[in-house]
């Protein structure tokens, strides 16, 4: 590797506006059913098929176009007489998905890496930004207690209130997780100010009646929130390396936008490469950390190597997939600690299982799938009295959790569980 080595340029820019990887599978199924299909077929059929899925973001017009574009680049479909038809490669992916889900996921990750280059680069960047915090990064959002009053669209004045909120947000993030937002405070705030003022000079969205601009108002919280994400993503995931200040891509188009960032987080999480949450009460914003690490070849069975995700220095990505035998005991101990933490804080016996999941994944650097299988084992252990605790898992919701319906759930035996209570039990 030379010092001037750069990542290969992506062959496709702009990731499609969807995050559920099952859409590829469903689209290819439609392709098999119809022999040849059009964009309209996809628009008609796909929403019906994914209706049953727990949470799929609303389809936008471009979602279907993006999906077709990506399937074409992956080589799973090809154009034929203005229509599309499945290729042999697409067929073999479908049969792989039916028999070996793990292998099918790896296959999709391989294709994604080849076309977008983002997966390997993104994880590498996280580790570079905060090596001591194991790649833990926060993309801040305004502190929750800020109740902003709506302002006129053109009122883009950067005042004391906004500056104060930014300072509080910055210190909150760095107090909770030191090093997780490695950007200089003053430079960050100055960028926020510029961007906030710039946004006020733009025209309102088309959906808003802007015949009289003086009647158009906006929520400063929403605007500052977008500005914070924009500016932070641009700084953290720029094309220049945070260590060397050298460009990591030869092409400026590889610059990551806030929109791409929001899509890549769930996609990379589906591949088990990272974990992210927007619901950690101590942190205003999105917390994300890798559940994978670059290493030379390792013999430890707690890692699944992905040799096609190679860094510029030749190390390749190892996804942390520990076995129950290896960390089961640690998992149970940590579960009790985390439960106690929330119990002492909230004083309620039934704690949000999603909150517990997020914290467990952070402390143990595991992905949600591993958490789900391990919590199931722990639950069975409690039923069989193999541990000195009784665990109760509930599907009900506390009043204050209703707002989080869109939050990724915890599935145990295929059932969405939302609350957990743990009590000591004498064996």
């Amino acid at each position, binding site marked *: 590797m030379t010092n001037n080595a750069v990542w290969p340029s992506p062959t496709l820019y702009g990731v499609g506006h969807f995050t559920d990887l099952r859409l590829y599978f469903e689209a290819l199924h439609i392709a098999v059913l119809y022999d040849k299909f059009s964009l309209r077929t996809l628009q008609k059929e796909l929403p019906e098929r994914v209706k049953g899925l727990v949470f799929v973001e609303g389809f936008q017009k471009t979602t279907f176009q993006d999906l077709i574009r990506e399937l074409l680049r992956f080589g799973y479909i090809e154009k034929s007489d203005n229509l599309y038809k499945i290729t042999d490669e697409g067929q073999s992916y479908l049969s792989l998905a039916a028999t070996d889900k793990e292998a099918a996921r790896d296959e999709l990750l391989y294709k994604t890496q080849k076309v977008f280059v983002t997966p390997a680069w993104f994880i590498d960047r996280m580790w570079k930004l905060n090596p001591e915090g*194991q790649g833990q990064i926060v993309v801040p959002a305004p*502190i929750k*207690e*800020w*109740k*902003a*009053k709506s*302002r*006129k669209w053109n*009122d883009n004045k950067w005042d*004391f*209130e906004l500056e*104060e*909120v930014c300072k*509080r947000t910055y210190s*909150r993030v760095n*107090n*909770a*997780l*030191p090093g997780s937002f490695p950007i200089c405070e003053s430079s960050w705030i100055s960028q926020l100010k510029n961007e906030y003022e710039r946004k006020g000079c733009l025209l309102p969205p088309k959906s808003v009646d802007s015949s009289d601009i003086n009647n158009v108002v906006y929520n400063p919280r929403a605007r500052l929130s977008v500005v914070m994400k924009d500016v932070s993503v641009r700084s953290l995931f720029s094309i220049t390396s945070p260590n060397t200040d050298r460009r990591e891509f030869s092409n400026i188009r590889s610059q990551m936008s806030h929109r791409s960032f929001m899509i890549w987080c769930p996609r990379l999480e589906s591949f088990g490469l990272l974990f992210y949450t927007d619901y*950690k*009460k*101590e*942190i205003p914003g999105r917390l994300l950390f*890798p*559940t*994978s*690490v670059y290493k030379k070849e390792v013999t430890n069975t707690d890692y699944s190597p992905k040799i096609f995700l190679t860094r510029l220095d030749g190390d390749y990505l*190892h996804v*942390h997939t*520990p076995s129950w035998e290896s*960390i089961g005991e*640690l998992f149970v101990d*940590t579960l009790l*600690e985390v439960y106690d*933490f929330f119990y*002492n*804080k909230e004083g309620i016996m039934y704690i949000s299982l999603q909150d517990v999941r997020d*914290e467990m994944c*952070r*402390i*143990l*650097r*595991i992905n949600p799938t591993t958490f789900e299988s391990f919590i199931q084992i722990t639950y069975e252990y409690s039923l069989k009295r193999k541990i000195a605790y009784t665990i109760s898992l509930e599907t009900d919701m506390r009043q204050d959790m209703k707002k989080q319906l869109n939050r990724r759930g915890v599935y145990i035996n295929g059932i969405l569980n939302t609350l957990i209570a743990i009590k000591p039990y004498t064996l």
Partner: protein
Amino acid sequence: MNNLLRRVQNNNAELNNKYSVYGFNQNPFPVDPAVKPLSDDKRENGSIFLTDLRRDEIKEFTDNFIGKQMKIGFLMDYATYRGRGIGKTAFLNYMKKEINSDLGDKISNGKEVLYAIYVSPTSEKKDRTMPLIARNIFVSMCESDLFLTVFSRLRAFSGKISEQILNQITDDYRTTIASDKWLYDHNVDVNHLNSEVSKKLQGIGLEIQFEDMTLFHQTNSYAKFLESIRLSTKDYYWQKEGCDYLFSKIVRLLKLADFTHCIILLDEVEKIVTYQNMSERRSFCDGLRNYFIDGTSVNAITGFFKVMLTIHPNSQELLMPHWKAAGLDRFSELGGTTANSNTVFFKPLNQDDTEMTLKLTRIYLNNARETESDSISPFTKNALLTAMYHADNIPGKFLKSMYIAIEKGIDKNWQTIDVEQINSLWESKKGKEEVSSMTELPETKIHL
């Protein structure tokens, strides 16, 4: 000695003064950094106020509130995210004292005769309707010297006291012009004077029959006056007639005493707004409009009372829809682009202004010293700046930590209180604090 007769020993304060090691006669800082306006302790009653600290706010107050025909204004607390103790109450009490010291002569450049009333809502949840808020205002008026001043002015302007005697009146009205005996001793015909005052009061609908003073009968006309205007504080009475009484009769009385305006500094409006339900909030806003802007009361017509509401962004949010629905935003905007003209924005201290921290400390230290000095001993400059940093630039928090530092310094024989000692206070405090949103999250247990 029988326990029945036991009393606290009167120790010699000088001998037992543990603070003398630092050259103080008491702990220079308040134990509770909250202003108690009625307390005798200068550290607590708001007497120690560093005007330099709030120069901008004082200017905004004077420009927006005194110089204009503004009827409803706001004091917006921009530091609620950092906690309490920013100094709003101290500020309001300072403004009250400033205005009342010369009845607003200096602050209005001689154009107005003003009196300021500080009102703090009770924690009673029922006190959230306009009539009971009016009662609160009236009780605060009674607790202040407003009616003493009114009575004294009515006498002074009656034309029955000669210029020569008027010149002998001291600032203590109670023992001079308001005292029947003092006037009698100065050969003033008290009965004639009272009858003149009584006639004027009759003119505005207040019937007060003063007793006649004779050689054998000493009277206290001021007590009689006060008794006559004091109302029962029972809810029922105030709900029925309270608003009319305060906003019409009392206004007439104050105008009779030649006041041009009375300023009501209503602190902690969130105590009222938070407990109100939707219809109460609406009716509160309607009440404000009716009694302060365009109702039929004397106050609404003449704009006599000026009210300053202390709010913070949270209560602003709660009030906003009702404020607009009541049409109050046309008269006094609650936030928004034109709010600058009727709002005083209250901010935390400027972090970079180190001199201000030193000044604030000195003013408290000097209050506990025999002779004033510029020294900040036993503290070092860096210790003070560190304490201010830990206190998030909130004066209240800063003063509390200074109080603890002095107490701990005496216990532990600290000769000098430096950064290390200050940091130790905050570390031990952190340990005791519950897990809050500001705490660091637990370490990860797996290293990939």
